[in-house]
């Protein structure tokens, strides 16, 4: 059989700094244009080190009807790969051949306009995804049905709840019926009921012989939905085999540490009172490069420079989940006798296991003095993922609920009949 997607030597190079300063002004360009020949005369180094390869030497083929999972840490190149496949950005090297119509769902609700009604947005979104008007009209009822928004069809989507918005967006894309469907993290949002429905729809699509590329952090969904999975690291494919194997490799090997941040001495965030040197989140008794599982004790660690002599310093952590829910406010008073001296300190906290659900979390850190005065606050210090390692009888949806405590259960016999 012939592959439906053929990727050969694909590479994408980005210029570092392009993201920070996405657009330039005319003046800068003129200045640069004037400088370039001067730099060349001076023999200035060619700026080869401010470029990096987001993807390099990617080779793979996908057969029609295959469901392939793509996993990897943030920044591993997944999004870049999807953007090239969906023709949003151009590769620097290599070649991709697609033998079917492709639809990508890189972000649910792309192209929705808040002022337009649900009905108008169905047509708008469908057209953006490459559908003809008659085609959308033909599938209109199916889309509305799937999204369950009949009563709100003529309401502007800005008045929709986020759940309704999501359902409508997924419904349009899923009913597009392309030969190749690319799905990126749509399951990270929405309620459990809806996630189930989306996964069901994906299975449906696959069973009808469509090809699906599924990018997710939900390892259980990848294991259950995909026969095969690719794992990316530093822009390269490091594993391409059965989904089970790739997922296990990803979970065990702990591909790279994203849950640690170090700052160089002259770049340490903070102020004259406090500067942060390093932050880390990892499993207790596990090296920092291993993935966090829901059953791990989680260690929160911060190294900071204290420049205030003889004071009471406290550190508090505000933990948020990926939907912005404030999960916990935890912290420590580093000293209570007013005698903490200047110097480098490490504060470590251990979070009990079996409380955090398998999601993505982020946190802020705040330093205070004498339990009143705020010295320094840092938002979104770090993002970390808690992974699920339990397969629950084929139920691969994310476990619902903000927390998932490990409870002890017991069932005792009371009597034969109620008397």
């Amino acid at each position: 059989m012939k592959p439906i997607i053929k990727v050969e030597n694909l590479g994408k190079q980005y210029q570092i700094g392009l993201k920070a300063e996405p657009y330039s002004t005319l003046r800068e360009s003129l200045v640069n244009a004037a400088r370039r020949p001067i730099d060349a005369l001076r023999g200035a180094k060619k700026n080869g080190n401010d470029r990096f390869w987001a993807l390099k030497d990617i080779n793979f083929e996908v057969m029609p009807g295959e469901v392939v999972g793509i996993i990897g840490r943030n920044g591993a190149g997944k999004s870049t790969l999807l953007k090239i496949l969906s023709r949003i950005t151009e590769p620097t090297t290599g070649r991709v051949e697609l033998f079917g119509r492709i639809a990508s769902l890189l972000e649910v609700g792309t192209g929705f306009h808040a002022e337009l009604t649900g009905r108008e947005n169905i047509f708008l979104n469908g057209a953006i995804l490459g559908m003809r008007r008659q085609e959308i009209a033909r599938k209109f009822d199916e889309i509305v049905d799937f999204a369950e928004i009949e009563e709100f069809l003529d309401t502007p989507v800005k008045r929709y709840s986020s759940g309704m918005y999501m359902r409508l967006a997924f419904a349009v894309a899923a009913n597009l019926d392309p030969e190749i469907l690319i799905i990126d993290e749509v399951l990270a949002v929405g309620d459990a009921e809806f996630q189930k429905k989306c996964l069901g729809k994906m299975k449906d699509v696959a069973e009808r012989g469509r090809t699906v590329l599924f990018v997710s952090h939900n390892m259980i969904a990848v294991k259950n939905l995909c026969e095969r999975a690719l794992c990316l690291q530093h822009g390269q494919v490091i594993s391409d085999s059965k989904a089970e194997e790739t997922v296990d490799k990803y979970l065990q090997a702990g591909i790279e540490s994203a849950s640690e941040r170090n700052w160089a001495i002259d770049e340490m965030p903070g102020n004259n009172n406090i500067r942060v040197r390093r932050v880390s989140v990892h499993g207790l008794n596990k090296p920092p490069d291993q993935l966090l599982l829901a059953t791990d004790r989680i260690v929160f660690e911060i190294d900071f420079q204290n420049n205030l002599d003889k004071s009471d310093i406290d550190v508090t952590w505000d933990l948020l989940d990926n939907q912005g829910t404030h999960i916990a406010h935890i912290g420590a008073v580093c000293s209570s006798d007013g005698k903490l001296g200047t110097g480098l300190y490490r504060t470590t906290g251990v979070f009990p296991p079996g409380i955090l659900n398998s999601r993505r979390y982020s946190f802020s850190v705040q330093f205070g003095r004498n339990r009143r005065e705020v010295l320094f606050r840092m938002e979104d210090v770090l993002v970390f993922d808690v992974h699920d390692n339990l397969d629950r009888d084929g139920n691969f949806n994310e476990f619902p609920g903000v927390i998932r405590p490990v409870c002890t259960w017991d069932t005792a016999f009371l009597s034969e009949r109620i008397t």
Partner: protein
Amino acid sequence: MSEIITSQAAIEPHSGHLLPARPLVVIEPSRGRLPLRMREIWQYRDLLYILTARDIKVRYKQTLLGAAWAIIQPLATMLIFTLFFGRLAGMPSDNIPYPLFAYAGLLPWTFFSNAITNSGNSLVGNTNLITKVYFPRMIIPAASVAAGLLDFAIAFGLLVGLMFYYRVGISVNILMLPVLVVFTSLLALGVGMWISALNVKYRDIRYALPFLIQLGLFATPIIYPASMVPQKWRFLLSINPMTGLIEGYRSSFFGSPFDWLSLGISAALTVVILFYAAYSFRRMERTFADII
């Protein structure tokens, strides 16, 4: 960015497991001059229609006066110029009542300037689309130009009213109007699409554009007749592609003879600008998603 090779069988959406012999889409780094891919734009014509409709619907949502704004802008400008140039300065107007004369010029000029402003900002305003989905990018500025046509039609209604009021009859010259509108739209598309692509990279455009449009208003015979300009400067005036068009609109409304030379220059310049803009757009388009 990528090359579309379409065979009839390949377009069939539900060819099932039967794969086409040749790839539907080849994605490769682009080299050399890029083809315009008009066929692909044609395939996405429904998107052009829907984006145009979106632009129109959204423009007057939550406004008090709604579509009246289409008339207010040229009308208010006309009244101001009538007061200062018509009354106080006694500007000649080719034997047409000055208010009518000025409005006939401001009508297409308002369309043109709004079209290039809106399309010039259109790519930047649709960042979420550009970074998330693929479709021929030219559709975005094109939809902005097309959306302006409705305003033009509404404002044209007022012109008809004014012509009744001043008892100026309509002649067969009005038959040229559709041709003029097509050329004005194409010119606006060319300029607008070029500006929109530059705007992605250089946000200076946003500040320069209103100023350039204001200059254009005076560099084009809108509030003064071209006949007022000394013969030796006429040539300079006709290098401005809007000159021939604006004069053409007046001839078609008021029945005066067309200046075919001037119209020809405008038409030729429009075609040149359009092609130049389309090719530069294609070249710049490759990096939109990376730098926007």
